[in-house]
Structures are given as structure tokens and as C-alpha cells.
């Protein structure tokens, strides 16, 4: 047995899984507070990665400036999408809304291929030191940054929803919109904020992935990967999204290991999460952390 490889893949699994977890949180945030299943989450991520890359390459901006500009752009983008596309659909059956987000994801795909092209592009070198040594183990700086950023985002999410005024308002809205309104909370603002936060945070994940590997259309596939993560964790649980993300990331890499070493089927890592998904849903239909009274799709 190749322990080094297994260990390496497990680490990869955790790193990627944390990123899935971040995107899953974004997905759950929109689902919980606006009851929209956002099939375009992966495209949000890709858009963020492209836009940041564009700022860095075309305008040769320092990384942090490009990064912040991208955040601003994505916040506006999220709000505009909510206002123009989803607000008119409030009250429509959930299936219509799903069709619209699927359509929107294809639209964004094509638009981005047209604007940014189809080939993979790497981010300019951002870190002076590419590899750091931690306790005898060589770790790529980008990976460390990936873990640090993912965990930081999760902590910020936690603090935001636990302590901030708007975090509480968003939770109240997720619980019951009429109650939230009776407290003076504007549902319109909550919806816009949910989309803005979700777009911004997905973009961060996109940028991280772009820095670790490269930016290409394939990134938007993460939007689909997030489904098993979210469903495993329970559609309505943000913590569940994180745990689900890590589970899927690790399983994916384990499947890769088993396949590479023993089975030789090929591409196992891409389908394994979906098998796991089926098994978990058979045992726990509402996901590991989900609550049964939530409407499923």
C-alpha cells in the first residue's frame, strides 16, 4: 500500500473539501433565506475567478487591490441577479425557479466562454515562497492559504450569524418571513444581502482554486459537486454544508486512490460522491444535519 500517496490524497481531500464546504455554505445561505435552489453557484465562483484574474493581468493591479475590486464587483453582481432575475419570480413554484437558475447558469457559462475564452489560465505568481516546510513536510503556500482562507470564511460566517444584527435578521427571515417582517426587517434587503454574500464568498473560493491550480470553465463544475455536499449535510444547515463538503472532498480523493491503485476504472473520483449521496439519502433522507420540515427538491 502506498501510504505517502494515500496521505497526500487525504490532505488534498481536506483542502478541496473545505472549499466545497465554503461554496456549499453559499448555496445553503441562498436556499435558506430566499428558498431558491441556485444552480448557477458554480458560475458565480468561476466569474469571480475570471474577474480577479482580469484585474491582475490586464490592469496589473497588486493582488489585494484586484481581490477587493472583485469582491465589490461580485456583491453588485449578486444584488443585480437577485433584483432582475429572482425577485420577479417570488411566489412562483419552486420548479420554475429551478429552471430559471439552470438557464441562467448556461447563459453565464456561454457568456464567460465568449469573454474569457475556453483555455485554462494560471494566476500570476502571488507568493514569494512557493513551498514552506512544516515539521519536515513540504507544503505549497497556496494550499496553506487555501485552508486558512476557507477556515477564516467559516469563522466569519459563524460570527456573522451568531452576533451581527443582519446575521440575526437573516436567520429570522429563514425561519419565517412574516415574523421577520413583523420585527421591522425588510425582506427585500435580506434577499439582496443573501445573494451578495453568496456571490462574494463563492468568488473567494473561485480565486483560491484559480491560484492553487488554474482558472478554466471546469471550475464551474464545483457548483454541481456542491450538491452532494449540501444534500449530505442537509439542505438547510450551514454547518451541514461544511461537513458535507469535507466528506465529499475526502471521499473523492479516496475513490481516486482506490481506483488508481486497485480498480483502474478511471474517473472514479468524479462519480463516487454521487454514489455516496444516494446511500446517505437512503439512510437519512433529510441529510445528516437537515430538519425534516424543509421542502425538498
Amino acid at each position, binding site marked *: 500500500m502506498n501510504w505517502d500517496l494515500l496521505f497526500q490524497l487525504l490532505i488534498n481531500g481536506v483542502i478541496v473539501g473545505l472549499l466545497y464546504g465554503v461554496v456549499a455554505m453559499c448555496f445553503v445561505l441562498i436556499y435558506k433565506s430566499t428558498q431558491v435552489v441556485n444552480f448557477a453557484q458554480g458560475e458565480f465562483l468561476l466569474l469571480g475567478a475570471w474577474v480577479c484574474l482580469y484585474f491582475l493581468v490586464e490592469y496589473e493591479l497588486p493582488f489585494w487591490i484586484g481581490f477587493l475590486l472583485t469582491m465589490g464587483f461580485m456583491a453588485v453582481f449578486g444584488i443585480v441577479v437577485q433584483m432582475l432575475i429572482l425577485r420577479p419570480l417570488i411566489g412562483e413554484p419552486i420548479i420554475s425557479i429551478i429552471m430559471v437558475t439552470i438557464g441562467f447558469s448556461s447563459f453565464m457559462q456561454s457568456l464567460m466562454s465568449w469573454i474569457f475564452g475556453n483555455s485554462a489560465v494560471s494566476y500570476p505568481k502571488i507568493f514569494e515562497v512557493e513551498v514552506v516546510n512544516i515539521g519536515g513536510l513540504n507544503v505549497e503556500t497556496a494550499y496553506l492559504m487555501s485552508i486558512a482562507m476557507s477556515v477564516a470564511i467559516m469563522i466569519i460566517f459563524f460570527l456573522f450569524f451568531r452576533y451581527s*444584527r443582519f446575521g440575526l435578521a437573516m*436567520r429570522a427571515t429563514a*425561519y*419565517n418571513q*412574516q415574523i421577520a*417582517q*413583523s420585527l*421591522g*426587517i425588510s425582506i427585500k434587503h435580506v434577499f439582496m444581502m443573501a445573494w451578495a454574500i453568496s456571490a462574494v464568498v463563492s468568488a473567494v473560493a473561485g480565486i483560491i482554486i484559480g491560484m492553487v491550480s488554474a482558472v478554466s470553465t471546469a471550475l464551474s463544475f464545483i457548483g454541481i459537486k456542491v450538491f452532494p455536499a449540501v444534500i449530505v449535510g442537509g439542505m438547510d444547515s450551514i454547518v451541514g454544508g461544511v461537513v458535507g463538503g469535507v466528506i465529499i472532498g475526502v471521499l473523492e480523493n479516496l475513490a481516486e486512490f482506490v481506483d488508481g491503485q486497485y480498480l483502474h476504472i478511471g474517473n472514479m473520483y468524479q462519480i463516487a460522491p454521487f454514489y455516496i449521496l444516494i446511500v446517505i439519502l437512503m439512510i437519512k433522507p433529510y441529510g445528516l444535519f437537515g430538519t425534516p420540515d424543509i421542502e425538498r427538491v
Partner: protein
Amino acid sequence: MAQAAQKTNTDYILSVNNIEVVYSEVILVLRGLSLNVQRGKITALLGANGAGKSTTLKAISGLLNTEDGEVSRGSINFEGQNIAGTSPDKVVRKGVFQVMEGRGIVQDMTLLENLKLGAFTRKNFNMNEEIEKVFHFFPRLKERSITGGAAGYLSGGEQQMLAIGRALMAKPKLILMDEPSMGLSPLLVKEVFGIIKRMNDELGISILLVEQNATMALNAADFGYIMENGKIVLDGTAEELKNNEDVKEFYLGGGGDERKSFKNIKSFKRRKRWL
């Protein structure tokens, strides 16, 4: 002469003038309802199931538009401004806060989080001080806040207290209270009404109180209205109403029950469809 003077009295914090309310553009529920709430006083609104009491409160607070309802005629003047059709978050900002029927507690949040949410619209205040003020009226909530579990595990009475306390956090000028006695034991009803009265006395908050429990409501209130079928059919000071033969019969005799069941035939509740 005296009556005319009373009608234009500026001491009404709220006056509802001849409003009509329709749900889903076809179901007419309020048919020309008018009432006034005196500043700093408790006004009771009584009536049988389905009379339209909750609808009246929702028309004032704006929560009607979360249920596909609409004020199709008339005006609702709060401190001289017509607020009919205003969105609920703006109405709260103006100083009107509705404590919903069934309490409207966010069950999966803690007691303290619920209280904090009450102050959502306020700026420049000290959260801990405001929470202490609420605990001054509801010492029981203070005890229960220490454990910090989900508010859904509080008893019905505690949840009712939390709902009222949360309203205080908003520092409203007018509280619309929908059946605070619902589901509470007689002893607790008494306690809650005592607190409502004290809030009115000590803080000067005007209260429009909707109740099925007419005796309790009229004991606490200064003025009262009786409604039936979407209209006010009787009004008077609380004393007058308590001694009115019709009121006595309606609430004590069998007549009331008959009407209730008659009303129930038509009565259906559409579930939430908001925005």
C-alpha cells in the same frame, strides 16, 4: 357639538377610517371598519372567531401584504400620516409594533437573540440596558435567559412574555397585541395582563388589544370596540361595555357559541404566501 370635537381630537395616536380589506382580491373581510386608539391608553377590540380582528391589526401593521391582502378603501392615520398599504418594516420604523397571534417567536433562536431582534430597527442604544428594561417587566424571562437554549423550548406563557418583551425592545409608540391570552392558564393570563397594564402606565405606550377573553380585556382597557363580520357594531368606555346587556349575553350566554359555529363554516385560513 361635543361629539364633533371628539372626532377631530388630536389625542388619537391612531385612527382607522372606514377601511375595507380584501384578501386575494376577492375575499372581502373588513367592510368599512373605523376605530380610534387614544394616545397613552389601552383600547380593546373584541369579537368572535373570524370577525376580522387579526385582519384589522394586520391592516394597520402592513403585514396584510404578506398574505395577499390589501386595504382597498379608507385610510389608517398614525400620528397624522396615512400608513395604509405601507410595508411592515416601514411601519415598525414609524413606531407601530404588532405582537402576532401565536406569538411569532423565532423558535430556533435563543431568548436573548429574539429580544435583540426586537431592536432591529433601532439606532444608537445600549443593547444590555434595553434588555434589562425588558427583564424589569418580565423577571421570569431573566431567569430563563441564563440557560440560553432555543426559545422553542420555553413554555407557552414564557413565549408570550418573550413576544411582548421583544416588542418593548423596539421602543414603539403603539403596540398591536393579538390575543395575548391565547393558550395560557387563567393565572398566567392575569399575570400577563397585569404586565401589559404596567407597561402602559410606566412607559406610556398606547396599546390596541385584540382579545377573545372579553372580561380580562375590558378590565385592562380604557375603551373598547366590539366587531362582528368586518364591522364595528358597538363601542364605549370599558365600563360601559362591561355593563352592556348585549355584551354580557354575547360573551356569557349560548348566543356567542352559535355565531361562532355559523362563522366557522365560511372560515378558512390561507397559509402564508408573502411578498
